């Protein structure tokens, strides 16, 4: 399989998981760059072009609360998990654990 196709498949595989990763990382207030850094530090490499629009979308869906704050002489938009977001995160986490367990069994059979 060529690299292009593998990249596309990898992107598809990661797309759904990114929502979970962003929600989980937003338990504490985060602004765009700090969120990206936190994800990177935890081994989830995501480019700005994907992350920033995704965060805005989650905020529009009410899963994240947002607030503009002045910090280090500059304004930044901070995002934090909302009450609805926390519920959704709990449900998605359970779903992920179950899926992960099933997948692990399947992959071990190969």
């Amino acid at each position, binding site marked *: 399989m060529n690299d292009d196709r593998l990249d596309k498949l990898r992107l598809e595989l990661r797309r759904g998981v990114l929502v979970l990763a962003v929600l989980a990382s937003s338990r504490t207030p985060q602004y765009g*760059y700090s969120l990206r850094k936190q994800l990177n530090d935890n081994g989830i490499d995501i480019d*700005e*072009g994907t992350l*920033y629009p995704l965060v*805005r979308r989650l905020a529009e869906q009410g899963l994240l609360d947002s607030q503009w704050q002045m910090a280090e002489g500059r304004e*930044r938009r901070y995002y934090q998990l909302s009450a609805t977001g926390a519920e959704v995160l709990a449900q998605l986490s359970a779903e992920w654990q179950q899926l992960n367990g099933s997948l692990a069994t399947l992959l071990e059979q190969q």
Partner: protein
Amino acid sequence: MMELLERYLAAVAAELPADKQHDIVRELRANLLDQIEAQQQDGPLDDNQLSQLLLQQGHPIEVAQRFAPGAPLIASEDMPLYKTVLWHGAALMAVIALLKSLGGLVLADSINPVRLLLQLGFSFIDNFATLLLLVTAVFYGAGQAGWTKEWRQRQWHPARLPRYPLARMKLSDSITDLTSALFLLLLLWTPLWLSVEAQQHLPVRLAEGMEYWRYLLTFFAALSAAFALYRLTQLSWQRWSKWCYILDHLVFALIFAAMAIKGGVFTEPQQLSDGARLFWTHAAGSISYILLATAAVLLVLAIAEYRQLRRL
């Protein structure tokens, strides 16, 4: 350096919807400033390094699209129907443009092929542009109201799927029949869409005392259009609907044959040009043959449908 950043943000803003420009650009600026700050640990970035960073962000159009993706006018699920309607509409517009151009040819004292082709082309483009606008507007409105989704899901149940391939109602057939019926109605009612002057110059018109053919054909063309519309809401043929379809063909075959046999249904225009005079002197009899040929084709189609009915 900051000038380059502001130019980039302005380019992104230009691609965003007006109501979202301020908010998105404000946030994008804050994010980019954070990235710039993270990269300038060894000193401020020069224009070249900032250009590299902005290149990594992507083209302003792509960035704007990611933040505010535009909704398509037509949903991808509606595209097959949209394209089918446009194709049939385009065929109808082409025939109308051809008739108009041929009408002009009959009226003309001399024939100029280039002028004829240009007239044909512009007439088609003019009509098709209007059709494209109308069809797109209707599909957009219906899509927003959720009607197209309702239509796609019509009668959807595995048990209602056609038992045999022949029982499946073809969308393209229903739209073809609807288009044909509408075309016939347009032909019958030229007074509603052609100027008085153009009507006087039509190469053919109904003879005195033959108006009842117009009303008879209008009645059955309207029925045919309504039946085609009904079929658009169905997934499979029933025996009764197939019978109606056969009857529809037979009625028109009968009417056209009767018009051909009776003769004198059509007459020459009030103002006879050289071209029209030529037609009425040498080719007036061909109208009956055209009507008979149309009736024969409809009869053959009716027989083919009857053979399908027996296998339903």
